[in-house]
């Protein structure tokens, strides 16, 4: 249960990315990379995560900022969500991401929270956050998936022992934009496609991303692939602000006239990872963008959904959001 009292830890504030990577390498599982703190501080206050050393990234200016490259843009992982939301270049080319960033939590949280933090945050399953010993916490059961469990916010796809969902609003936008995650550790750098960045519980139930303890998300690259596409982002939630998605959708659609040339459609809060709807994308490719196509897309999007006791509402909700995204 919640303790609301941060335990002691060693706070280290490196002044270079290399220094930070060396520290992450040194501490591994006992280290914790702290960005905006919007997720981390909750864990610390609950004493649910107790790192020996917190590596505060605050001083790493190299990880901030938005730059134009020859093939798109790069966003430093420490760039705040407010900056992502307001940046003219992002708004001009990839308004899908600015829109997604603008829907995260509240203005105060967006001012402090970073893009990297939003992508790497842990799931919000209330049982897991409460501190029960579930699979994700290293235990041997799933409380949220049990009969009569209160699982209104949980997964309708891809449950595998764990039924938690990806809480990130920006993740679905970046998957839809074919973004790449630049990840570095003290041994080198690797680039990971956004749709391969998030971790399914079937692969590793205790991680939300492919990041290892010694890894740091450095920046996000968005290629110009979808520059000029028609974007749609919508987040359904209980409150208009300071809330996580019940279901969200991000889409990028390229058309010639009314005919759809190509599309990316990704849903959030329905699975442990951003759920890319490749079958729907394939189905609508070449179709006229109209109400019928939208309805077919919505219907196809929810095929195979497996609701829990309290979340079958997510099926029509997801269907509606996908329909709206395709309808535009």
């Amino acid at each position, binding site marked *: 249960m919640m303790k*609301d009292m941060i335990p002691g830890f060693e706070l280290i504030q490196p002044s270079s990315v290399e220094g930070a990577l060396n520290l992450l390498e040194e501490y591994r599982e006992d280290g914790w990379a702290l960005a905006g703190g919007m997720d981390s501080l909750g864990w610390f206050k609950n004493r649910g995560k107790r790192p020996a050393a917190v590596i505060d990234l605050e001083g790493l200016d190299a990880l901030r900022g938005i730059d134009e490259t020859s093939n798109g843009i790069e966003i430093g992982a420490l760039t705040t969500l407010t900056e992502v939301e307001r940046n003219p270049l992002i708004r001009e080319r990839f308004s899908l991401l600015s829109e997604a960033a603008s829907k995260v939590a509240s203005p105060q949280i967006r001012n402090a929270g970073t893009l990297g933090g939003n992508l790497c945050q842990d799931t919000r399953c*209330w049982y897991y956050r409460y501190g029960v010993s579930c699979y994700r916490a290293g235990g041997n059961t799933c409380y949220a998936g049990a009969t009569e469990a*209160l699982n209104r916010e949980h997964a309708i796809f891809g449950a595998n022992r764990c039924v938690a969902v990806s809480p990130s609003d920006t993740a679905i936008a970046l998957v839809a934009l074919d973004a790449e995650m630049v990840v570095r550790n003290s041994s080198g750098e690797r680039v990971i496609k956004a749709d391969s960045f998030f971790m399914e519980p079937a692969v590793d139930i205790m991680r939300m991303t492919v990041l290892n303890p010694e890894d740091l998300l450095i920046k996000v690259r968005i290629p110009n692939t979808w520059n000029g596409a028609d974007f749609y982002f919508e987040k359904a939630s*209980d409150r*208009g*602000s300071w809330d996580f998605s019940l279901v969200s959708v991000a889409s990028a659609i390229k058309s010639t006239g009314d005919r759809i040339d190509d599309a990316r459609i990704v849903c959030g809060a329905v699975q442990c990872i951003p759920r890319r709807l490749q079958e729907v994308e394939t189905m609508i490719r070449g179709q006229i963008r109209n109400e019928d196509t939208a309805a077919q897309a919505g219907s196809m999007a929810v095929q195979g959904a497996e609701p829990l006791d309290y979340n079958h*509402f997510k099926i*029509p909700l997801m269907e509606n*959001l996908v329909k*709206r995204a395709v309808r535009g």
Partner: protein
Amino acid sequence: MPELLGKDFIPPDIRGKVTGAAKYAEDFRMDGLVYCRLLTSPMPHARVRNIDLTEALRMAGVVDVLTADEVPEQPGAATNILTNEPHFVGEPILAVAAVDETTAQNAIEAIRLDLEPLPFCVDPLESLRPGGPNAYLEGNTVVPRQGVQELKWSTEDFEAAEEGQLPMGEPGAEWSYGDLEAGFSGTALTLDETFVTASHSHHSMEPRTALAYWENGKCHVRGSTQSQSFVVPGLANYIGIEPENLVYVAEYCGGGFGSKGSAYPCMAIPAYMSKKTGRPVLMRISRAEEYYLGSARPGFQGRIKMGFQEDGQISAVDLYIVQESGSNGGGGDMGAAASAVSIVYTPLAMRYRGISVLTNTPPRGAQRGPGQNQIAMAVEPLLDKAARQLGIDLVAIRRINAPTNDSRYGASRQPVTSAHLRDALDMGAEQFAWQERRARSGQRNGSKIRATAVGQAFHSAGASGFDGLVRITPDGVLHIHSGVGNLGTYSYASTSRVAADALKYDWDNCQIVRGDSSLGLPWNLGQFGSNTSFTMTRTNYAAAMDALRKLKEIAAIEFGGSAEDYDISGENVFSKSNPSRRMSYARAAQKAIELGGAYSGHTVPDDINPMTARAVASVVDTGLIGVARDNMGQSGMVPALAAGFIEIELDVETGKVEIIDYLGVADCGTVNHPQGLATQIKGGAVMGFGMALTERHLYDDVWGLPGSVGLYQAKPPSYLDVPSEMGWAAVNIADPENPVGSKGIGEPLMGCSAAALLCAISEALEGHYFNRTPVVTDMIVNAYSGQPQSHTPLQVNTQ
């Protein structure tokens, strides 16, 4: 004509709040202060088998540990200060004092606590089933004068109810009036609906922190309460001292909403710890802890049968409520709900039955409109359902049933002092352009449907018999001693202005004395129950009248004649026949000291409360003392009534509700403080929107664990969820039983907005009645999609 009442002003505590100089309980520090943290129960019901403190006490910086064995046990189904048998997750078992909070928390982690799990219950109906679990070892309900008893309904009781209907076994309370059978016979329409209203946490922004120390035989406590003087006897009792030995400071309160109206048990923990350690102790309660051990509004599982005549008049109501009363027996919500029905809808005949059931969830207590607001959410959409079926306008059906000055209240058919709900409805309909908006209500634009609706609510809002105390010092300043407390509504200040008006004082020459019992504060009712505007205007008026009488008597002593020969003006008392014979208030105050006796507080009226007598004694000979009990009499219940008008847009594909516009209209008698009232109307509306739509109160019934222990999980609305502009209005008709015409109003302002919003959602969904509140997103999506709801008809704590 009053100079001050009815006008805006700057309440004296504003500056401190804006600048940050205001000191709330956790802002105090003292030399030698130690910090206290709580070890709370991880189980919904358990018994302590053993506590091993060895390792904790060995830790550097740990000062001491306080256990339940060292504090008095509270009788019956009450929350304990500390307990060896916790009845809800988060109930304090012991406290650790240390040099800092981190050390205290680390020590708590080092304590080896051996708990024996006991049966628990988070659903009242389950507890009423034969063989169902009890929240207490002794039973599941509180019987007056008998304590906790077991009450089970029979299998036949449960089988008698149709699927989804509330079973109605033996009640714990009941009353009726009129001929119920006749009321239901020959009606044009009868509705019989089962409903659930959820429990709601109080979400007070300031958690219930307390600091305590002992000095010269007295215990000093800095606490977080809505009330001031009313807290003292209860807190002294928890601490085990006489009220005169408690110094209580509560100058500011960061929200209570009913949960801090009186003393509460955990406030006493620092006092006991301080006594044990000999050091000042600060116990800060965290946000999550506030959700665990704070309190909540009781939820209802209810059933209501309403008979309507062809013109919409309600001829009969039969109401049954099962109240979820948490771990402490809850409050009187269910009875208050029934009484509210009797006055808001004035049925010709009515029966009420109710049973309060204990569960292993947080303590329940009054929350803004306790009972009245829950029932408004259940009944108001039903009223619309009836109106639609009878072909009556939604305002018209409310008008025909609305109370008047001749209406009667509750089981005892008590008269009312004044009731102008009909005027509020008329004023609201006009200002909200009701007909025009209704014409477009139901119109669809894509997936969005517009809807306009109205809601109403009530609360009894005034009391009498409390004391007022004012003091004119030789510098001419009027000191208005207020023991009511500072909930945050500024009504402590606006009601004080009555004394200034009565004595024709310049407000700049007045000071409100408050916030610290050692300053000499009278016995006043707590700041709850929407009573302050009515109650405190009366007490302050009574004290001012006493001061006025003494001013005139002193002038008569000085200049001759009798008191009746004198009048006041410009802070002078003068002879009516020879105005040159005048004496300033300052001089009169000096004269009062010289005269002594009642004039300067050496003697006091026999009928004032001992606390007030002590307050006077503490300021004796400091000036002219005006002190009196409010003996003005009260012939009936003081009804606060309110109507809310709303226009929304509902997106049926996403369940998103956008509030386009809102207008709240109050029947609060004469308006004391327009800006304060406007803030109450709008703030109440925001709170009501949360209660109707977004707030969550979750308990897993397998493990008894709470799922909403943070603001982001419990989801009260933020300022971004409501319109930036909302309208307000007041009928502004004086109540005849208040010297300045005032009535309270705070609570129904929440209920009417919640009801209006729920009615609007139903309206957008072609009259769909949800039988459950709040109407959260999944319910709207399921309803529109034609899917069954996830929450079975009588489930609780799942939303």
